[in-house]
């Protein structure tokens, strides 16, 4: 964000190409195979983060069918919205640009899942079992956490379920507990991607489901280990 505050050089060079920086950004989005942050994209394009952020938002809206003014002139959004509805660009595209797990990435639009699924078997993952889901939930909300603690909460041994979740890339080893030496687990950015959220802070609150049990964690920690 800092050293290229002017962004002038990069902008000038890219603006000369048909479609300008905006199209260059689209081109980069076509080849990434994992979410890329605005900072990474800005560095690659040699423009400021602010420029990239504006363009990303503009593309996101455009793909979703909101009419957006052409390139640099992203200002009049309020006005643009007025006469937008009936025009060509008002139909959403078949894909969308989303900010997930700390980065931007192109996805096919959920509406077309059935059709797309016929072509893309890859990456389609089997559904998680109930046991895996519950284990996943405990780890997501208590991370970093040992298998022993997850077991204590679920009341059953979770070893094999944890192994499956690791293989699926949804959780990972995050070091060992200094006291017990037990391996601690946390969720991965792939988990965030699969959930469509930016960070674990965006997970739904647990507290509404836990009436009057605010102190329960400490209670169990003391009791269990």
């Amino acid at each position, binding site marked *: 964000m800092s050293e290229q505050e002017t962004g002038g050089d990069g902008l000038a060079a890219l603006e000369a190409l048909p479609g300008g920086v905006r199209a260059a950004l689209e081109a980069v989005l*076509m080849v990434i195979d994992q979410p890329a942050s605005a900072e990474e994209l800005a560095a690659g394009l040699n423009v400021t983060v602010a420029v990239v952020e504006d363009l990303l938002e503009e593309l996101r809206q455009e793909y979703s069918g909101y009419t957006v003014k052409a390139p640099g002139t992203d200002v009049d959004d309020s006005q643009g919205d007025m006469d937008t509805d009936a025009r060509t660009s008002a139909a959403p595209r078949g894909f969308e640009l989303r900010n997930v797990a700390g980065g931007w990435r192109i996805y096919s639009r*959920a509406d077309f*899942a059935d059709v797309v699924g016929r072509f893309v078997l890859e990456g389609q993952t089997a559904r998680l079992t109930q046991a895996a889901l519950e284990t996943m*939930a405990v780890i997501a909300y208590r991370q970093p956490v040992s298998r022993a603690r997850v077991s204590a909460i*679920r009341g*059953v041994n979770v*070893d094999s379920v944890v192994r499956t979740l690791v293989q699926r890339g949804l959780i990972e080893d995050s070091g060992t507990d200094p006291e017990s030496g037990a391996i601690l687990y946390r969720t991965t950015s792939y988990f965030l991607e*699969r959930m469509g959220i930016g960070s674990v802070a965006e997970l739904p609150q647990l507290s509404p489901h836990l009436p009057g049990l605010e102190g329960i964690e400490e209670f169990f920690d003391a009791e269990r280990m």
Partner: protein
Amino acid sequence: MAEPLKAGFEVRLANFTGPFDLLLGLISKHKMDITDVALATVTDEFIKYIRRLQELGEEWALDEASEFLVIAATLLDLKAARLLPAGEVEDAEDIALLEARDLLFARLLQYKAFKQVAAILSGTLESEARRFPRQVALEAHIAAMLPELVWRHTPEQFAALAAKTLAPKDSTPEEVGLDHLHGTPVSVKEQAEIIGYRLQHGQPQSFRALIADAESTLVVVVRFLALLELFRDRVVAFDQPGPLAELTVRWTGRPEGWSSDNMSDEYEQSHQGEEPL
């Protein structure tokens, strides 16, 4: 019901993923509030269910079954308490029972909360799975720009790496911490001598004090075993005012007539020929 049951305990449980799940299932079947003391009414069914699992299972996985048994035992306690005439909370046993109940409720409520958020996560994962990320192979003209790969492995080195990678990993590395058991020999006799010396040459001591300098859990365990041995040899006595209260150990043997050589040496014998304990 009697389908081939191979994959483990959870399969046998059919729709339940654990004891709390079963308990919640029974509670909702009876349309009861979790916090209702009448939890005791589901006890019979819970026990019945476990018994059925036991009958079904060829090899009843102790590890996983134990949680069911703990909960069943707690439920039985609660039921027993309900059958007795209601009265004032009087002794430690009543309090322990109340604590057990609260603990069970707390764990059950906690589990219920996680079950609920698991359902939310499941819904999110499912709706998100309708979007497919673009993740395509790099276009040839871009891939051509990648720097030439540095590859220095000889076939032999590569094979060694493959062998290491393909070697079966221990499925539960977390529980395998046995190295230190074999690494540090700790003898019951030795520890008995240490304890015996301290007790003969000092005041009665608490167990806590006797293990204060133990450098590992193993030493704590072995000192405890040593105390049991000493107790059997009638040279020490224990004082404990109540369950889980401080345990005080005093020397009751004759002042000098004891040595660890006279100790019944069951431990040392049973471990002869093996790694030191």
